[in-house]
């Protein structure tokens, strides 16, 4: 069991690197992405600073200016998300294929013992494809998701591919909250 657990950690490290490499080839190295990212970062910082200095100002012209900035940032964020979308589909397909392969390899196998009993809505994941009703048995998919959650994000951050804090705070693109504080 110990070897299965270590193998899953290793698999998730490999897939995290593979995902990042694929995204690098499709997105990160393109000139368009780099330009947009630099712009979004710069604008987010600028907007944040502006809001900090003029936050409580009731001046209409200041408000208008900030609104214009927000609009520009929103457009750039949308473009950035569209650029990323291409790789999201590619990695999505690759990962679904890989996951189903690993799923069939580890099918019905208990890969680890959980030191706690998961809450009911997680049990579907942590006990997937396992027989018996001992919910401290851990399935492949649960451990894999946990590993990926920690490893992938850390790798992204380490390589500098994670979105900057200012950018994600100002509304993270297509699916993030719309920056509309002054509307």
């Amino acid at each position: 069991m110990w070897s299965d657990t270590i193998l899953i950690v290793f698999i998730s490290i490999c897939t995290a690197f593979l995902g990042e490499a694929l995204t690098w080839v499709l997105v990160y190295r393109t000139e368009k992405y780099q330009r947009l990212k630099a712009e979004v970062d710069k604008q987010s910082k600028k907007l944040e600073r502006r809001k900090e200095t003029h936050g409580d100002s009731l001046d209409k012209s200041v408000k208008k200016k900030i609104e214009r900035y927000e609009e520009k940032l929103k457009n750039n964020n949308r473009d950035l998300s569209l650029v990323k979308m291409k790789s999201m589909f590619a990695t999505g397909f690759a990962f679904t294929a890989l996951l189903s392969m690993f799923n069939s390899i580890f099918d019905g196998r208990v890969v680890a013992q959980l030191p706690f009993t998961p809450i009911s809505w997680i049990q579907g994941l942590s006990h997937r494809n396992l027989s018996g009703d001992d919910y401290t048995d851990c399935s492949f998919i649960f451990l894999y998701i946990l590993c990926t959650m920690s490893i992938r994000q850390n790798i992204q951050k380490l390589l500098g591919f994670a979105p900057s804090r200012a950018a994600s705070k100002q509304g993270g693109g297509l699916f993030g909250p719309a920056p509309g504080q002054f509307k």
Partner: protein
Amino acid sequence: MTTKTSTIERNANGAVKSSSLREICARALTKSEKWDDKDEFLDVIYWSRQVFGIILGIIWGIVPLKGFLGLVLFAGISCGVVYLYAINFQNVDEDAYGGAWELVKEGFMTSFAGFLVTWIIFYTGLHYDTIMAAKAS
């Protein structure tokens, strides 16, 4: 590819700043250090939290701590230590970071996942026979 250090350099609003890992560590351990770049301080919190989560995971696995108590203890210790470090040790102005909540939640989920993985691995690896014996009886 950009490294972590150059992310910090770039975030420093154009001001050229060559903070090596060792310098950052030294600053992180200095009481009431002044952090001009907010991102740099948040990075310190983020990475120390990841390391801290893994260390706690190893300890919980070796002990072994079990059940809901382990999860609550981790969440409490992790958030408490970050809060005390930022507010009492570094004396940062929490409002500048958007409130204490922003500091406390920085990197929490990632470190929680890392903690769970190490906890599960060490628990399974070190106590497998005991667990199985207990289950059989």
